[in-house]
């Protein structure tokens, strides 16, 4: 992939991000922040790539593995904690509907 098309990807991705959340009720600020934070752990893909492309016995294997660990801590923990928060909100309306 050449650089200028990657820059286009960056630009369009940013514009998409700006458009995605327009009005957020304050209730959802914390879960949204937490969910977006989990997504930022997508850098795990970079760590995976590094591990896969590393030469045998290269220190890159260990660095990549630690990096992957940190990223997955962010991703897995982030999604779980967001779900825990959101579960509290969604419980109420279902109770009411019954």
């Amino acid at each position, binding site marked *: 992939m050449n*650089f200028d098309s990657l820059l286009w*990807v960056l630009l*369009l*991705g*940013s514009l*998409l*991000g*700006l458009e*995605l*959340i*327009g009005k*957020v009720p*304050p*209730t*959802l*600020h*914390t879960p*949204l*922040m*937490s*969910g*977006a934070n989990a997504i*930022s*752990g997508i*850098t795990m*893909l*970079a760590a*995976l*790539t*590094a591990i*896969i*492309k*590393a*030469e045998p016995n290269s220190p890159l*294997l260990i*660095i*990549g*593995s*630690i*990096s*992957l*660990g*940190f*990223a*997955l*801590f*962010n*991703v*897995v*923990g*982030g*999604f*779980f904690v*967001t*779900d*825990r*928060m959101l*579960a509290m*909100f969604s*419980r109420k309306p279902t109770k009411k509907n019954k």
Partner: protein
Amino acid sequence: MNLPDIIKFVIDLLAVLLLALGIKGLSKVRSAREANILAAFAMLLSVVGLLSYYLGTSGIPSQSWAWIIIGSLVGSLFGILLAKKVPMTSMPETVALFNGFGGMSSLLVAIGAFLFPFNEVAKVGSLEPFINDASISVSIFVGAITFSGSIVAMAKLQGWLSTPGWTQVKARHFVNIVFGVTSLISFIYLISGNVSSIWLLVIASTILGIGVTLPIGGADMPVVISLLNSYSGIAAAAAGFVVDSQLLIVAGAMVGAAGLILTQVMCKGMNRSLISVLFGGSLSAQTTTSSGSGEYTNITSCSVEECALTLEAANRVIVVPGYGLAVAQAQHTLREVTKKLEQNGIEVLYAIHPVAGRMPGHMNVLLAEADVPYEQLKEMDIVNPEFPATDVVLVLGANDVVNPQAKNDKSSPLYGMPVLDVQEARTVFVIKRGMSAGYSGIKNDLFDLPNTSMVFGDAKKVLSELIGELKDLGIGDK
């Protein structure tokens, strides 16, 4: 394009689409929970796409598999443990910690990519080596700031770190500029082929992250966390340039931009500009030096018993929760009190200021944990007209968000911040441990008003005493 390329392309496209839908859905109450699961699924999909691509092309050496499994098991395990164990009251710290580790991940992978290059960037004379080094530098710079900044933010929210007085001097801007310039210089050295300058870049940007976050006061912390969250997206996007992955770039850019919007929304709620949050330092330090006048002249304090008697006679009660409620872990006790009041036919509402607590939505999460019905939580604009028709307001651990100075006193640093008009109610009870100021460090004019009574004590203790008093009055006993 051969088959593995096509498969990966389709999976990546699908993952981006699901991630975008996920972020979109997270901003609506109805769809938030499903959206979160959708986003998690998209992340899983992206991993599957990547692994299958390499399996179909170059293959994955068994040694790599071992390190992948170790890294992911350890990381996920600790992530789940923390996510399950942590109390709801310390959500802001938890998000900060997760965020910091995300930044750490980008930082490490960039260091690895620089010291042990694994991508084919050979074309001498072309722009490619420069771009590769530049993206590595950006990834290190932003990753390190995200990491150290988030850890400082977490430590401050946990109360492990306070805001030292010396961080408020103007010279700190100079110090930060020095480290910023050092980062820039080491970046220039790095792209001109000096390998060891990478460590200078790591150190300088780590210190810069600390230097920028440390002076920021408690009330501005949510904004900082949101901003750091946005940074970690940028760090991910930069890592995407390093490993040549469009998916990483799109996802990182989306999070970066969405985080920026969220930061903006939060700033608006506090009537602060992003610039003043970042460079203004903590409000408290400014006001103690400029306007020292903070004497209270007309404080009325009252007993829990009086408070109970007034509550008994009320038709409508509005609770204003704040950070103090979270600190005292009094949300369940509060719920018991309000249950009793409701059983007696008293209408109970909760007024949620957009920046009450240490994070927007903090109070919603807290009260939801105590099973407070969602419909009783009212946002500021909706609840403000209700105060004149309210008998009793209970202010629990909130301070700056109910300060009438923000409306009346043009010289006040709070002036212009939207606040809850609790003073319009017939009686206001402020449950507070002492007369200390809120996070802005500003005197609260509300406490001096004739219809305000202070009930001194820890929120949890006062509320459980209140339960006893209400019982004695025969309220809510069925």
